[in-house]
């Protein structure tokens, strides 16, 4: 495993961009606003809760690692305007009741301090949308649903702000990419094979279908659902294919995309049917778990899967934000399973929280004077390159989700670590717990571009 970590670290040299980072401590990449208030002796807490032990645990666990590492970093660098940074969090295990209970506890224990709350899941966002508004608490979330961010009518911005584009917008963006790539996707018909929860169903709305149809991309009306505990999804995949799909799109995580890709290989359709999904399918877990089934060409089944990439990725080491996070990841001796989206993005979210806090404090004159409404005013006016460009937060004009996105493809590194492998012959293989393992690589295919706005249509 150690060897695997080492080689994955080496992979980050792809593109030849690793300017002495192993030796020198990187500068913090953000251009943070200067403090006009001295908070020496005080503590600024980051409040968050969500599913750390339930169905989403494998993707959320690294959030705690990133938070811990970031707090350690800040406190060893003088804190925020002199104040010590801390965190107060709870595990709700994916239960709505536990989420409500955590929220009640937070609001009753920290009524004056709690102006900004970090949430993990769309379900919690929907549950707390009205309460956050009533209690005037701003919430940052990775990727909220339409209902959590914009209400049932899709037109009423609330107190939640998302770092990723809405999943329906990500799907619309993928349709744009498909329409613009007729050589790769001739006569495109997309079928959803996805999880059955709010996250899994995002993008299956009629508005998304109509938008894609207007681009010449047909989407099957009937989505096929499967559960994270399913061992066999031949029926669902075959249903989509029999319905005419030549692209399968999935809003699922970890084993979900791997299971679909493996099923396509089992059916001998890995070349005929393309696989794509929401930003979470581009995660490290998919690259590692997707190796248990190989294609006839010898590469893992998920090789060539398309997905959204609305932020910089670990392999883009020419970017200072990625260099910095990677250095912290290494210094804190984090394991390969934590080198995922959650760890990377959490550093960005903390940066955004710090920037919002400083701006609001400067405006109000002291930390104690800051209220949730003040914080909201700041976040609403933000047009901020998070961590110097890891992602972009622009919540002006009633926007509550990110507007920029890219399409990327999941590949596996070649033996010289200079790009994707074309087969097992030229692939980088490292010793892993199950024998030789391929090294996953995410390759962006487009630049950052505006996503279509499909909510409330």
């Amino acid at each position, binding site marked *: 495993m150690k060897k695997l970590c080492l080689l994955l670290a080496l992979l980050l040299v792809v593109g030849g961009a690793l300017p002495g980072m192993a030796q020198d401590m990187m500068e913090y990449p953000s251009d943070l606003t200067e403090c006009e208030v001295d908070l020496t002796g005080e503590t600024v807490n980051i409040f968050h809760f969500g599913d*750390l*032990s*339930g*169905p989403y*645990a*494998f993707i*959320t*666990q*690294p959030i705690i690692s990133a938070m811990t590492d970031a707090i350690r970093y800040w406190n060893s660098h003088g804190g925020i305007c002199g104040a010590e940074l801390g965190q107060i969090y709870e595990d709700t295990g994916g239960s709505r009741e536990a989420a409500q209970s955590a929220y009640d506890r937070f609001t009753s224990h920290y009524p004056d301090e709690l102006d900004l709350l970090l949430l993990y899941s769309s379900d919690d966002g929907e549950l707390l949308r009205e309460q956050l508004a009533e209690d005037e608490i701003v919430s940052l979330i990775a990727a909220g649903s339409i209902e959590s961010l914009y209400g049932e009518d899709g037109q009423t911005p609330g107190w939640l702000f998302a770092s990723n584009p809405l999943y329906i917008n990500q799907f619309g963006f993928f349709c744009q990419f498909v329409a613009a790539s007729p050589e790769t996707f001739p006569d495109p018909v997309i079928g959803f094979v996805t999880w*059955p929860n709010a996250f899994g169903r995002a993008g299956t709305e009629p508005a998304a279908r109509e938008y894609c149809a207007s681009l010449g991309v047909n989407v099957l009306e*009937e*989505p*096929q*659902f*499967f*559960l*994270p*505990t*399913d*061992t*066999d999804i*031949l*029926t*669902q995949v*075959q*249903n989509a294919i*029999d319905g005419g799909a030549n692209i399968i799109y999935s809003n699922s995580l*970890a*084993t979900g995309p*791997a*299971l679909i890709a*493996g099923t396509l290989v*089992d*059916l*001998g359709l890995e070349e005929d049917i393309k696989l794509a999904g929401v930003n979470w399918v581009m995660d490290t*877990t998919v690259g*590692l*778990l997707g*190796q*248990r*089934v*190989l294609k006839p060409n010898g590469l893992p089944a998920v090789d060539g899967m398309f997905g959204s990439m609305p932020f910089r990725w670990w392999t883009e080491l020419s970017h200072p934000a990625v260099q910095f996070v990677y250095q912290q990841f290494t210094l804190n001796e984090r394991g390969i*399973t*934590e080198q995922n989206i959650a760890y990377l993005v959490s550093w960005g979210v903390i940066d955004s929280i710090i920037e919002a806090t400083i701006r609001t404090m400067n405006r109000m004159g002291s930390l104690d004077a800051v209220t949730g409404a003040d914080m909201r005013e700041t976040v609403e006016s933000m047009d901020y390159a998070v961590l110097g460009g890891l992602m972009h937060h622009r919540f002006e004009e009633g926007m509550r989700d990110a507007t920029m996105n890219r399409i990327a493809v999941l590949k596996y590194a070649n033996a010289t670590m200079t790009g994707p492998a074309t087969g097992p012959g030229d692939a980088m293989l490292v010793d892993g*717990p*199950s*024998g*030789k*393992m391929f090294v996953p690589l995410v390759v962006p295919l487009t630049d950052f571009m505006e996503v279509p706005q499909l909510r409330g249509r």
Partner: protein
Amino acid sequence: MTEYINRNKRQLTWLLYAIAAVALALFVGDQLAGLKAARIVQTLISGVLVGGVYGLVALGIVVINKASGVFNFAHGWMMVVGGMIFWSFFTVSEISLAGAGLLSAATMFMIMTTVSYRNLLEQRNLLIAAGGAIGLTALMTVGGIDWRWLHALTGTFAGAILTGLAVERFTIRPLIGQPLFTAVLMTLAVAEVLHGVTQIAWGTVELHLPIFVDPQTSSRFKPIRLEGLREALDGLAIIRVELVIAFALAIVAFIGFILFFRYTSVGLAMRATSEDQQLAQSVGLRVRVILAITWAAAAFLASIAGVLQGGAVGLSLNISFVALRVFPAVLLGGLESITGALVGGIIIGIVEQFGTLINSSEQAGTNLAPYVVLMLVLVIRPDGLFGEKRIERI
């Protein structure tokens, strides 16, 4: 008219059921009519194989219920613990001697003190415990990575016995003679404790358990493709090897437990204990020992199911939810029936797959069809297909 209805109530009820069953059959038949034979055969194969795994999980729940009357809500988490222990031994190249020794010693301690802690005061028992611990430790640590199957199977066996005995000793045994409902609630508490322990020990990140892999390529076994039947079926059907292995293991476990309950004195004593624990104790049966064996056996079955499930889709805390999906199978087959667990599992597997084939977009396969079938069966046979009819003296 009213009199006629009252007089023929039973027949009329059956008539209504028959009409409902025929309507359902016609609906399903109509939905399947336009499909290729390959789809139907494939769905049937998938249903039977997935159902076999459900049956194995159901068996663990039934074994506990058969011996103690307790419905074990912790079974899913016992699956997770078993799977995680297997992973710890299977994927580590150098097993910690201290860790293996501790696990072996704890297991032997629990075994030797099943009847009483005073057993350890006897020198002979101490020697047996020490010998057993050394033997288990040796099996868990001998050789290198090439011996990992032996390490993992021994470690999982010891871990399952330890888990089962610990659960029985510290949570179920103190409740002997108390209302059964208390013990059922206790299993809910045990589930939460195992949840916490798993999270602390192994974290929550999904783990790859590479047991169904071809050693030459390190990739999953290629499925069996029924090319010879392609023309006859108007399409290709495949059989996934890992599901066949899981199914075969389930069948072996079933046969073993049927023989155990029917032909061994411990098995017969378990059945007697399930009828009435206090009565069984009064006629000289060692209820404590019987319950301990039962829980250990159920934990071992849960571990096998956890390993198979983890090997098929990856090891995560989500595996515990499989036990929830199996509850209809347990109730359908009959709470105390070993045969019922297998048949119930396979029926639910098939129903799920055909429900998905007909209407996956509304989750008919997982959320609707198994429960409709369960309701129909329970209305006709309230004790399940193979459950024991209970007659109570009032």
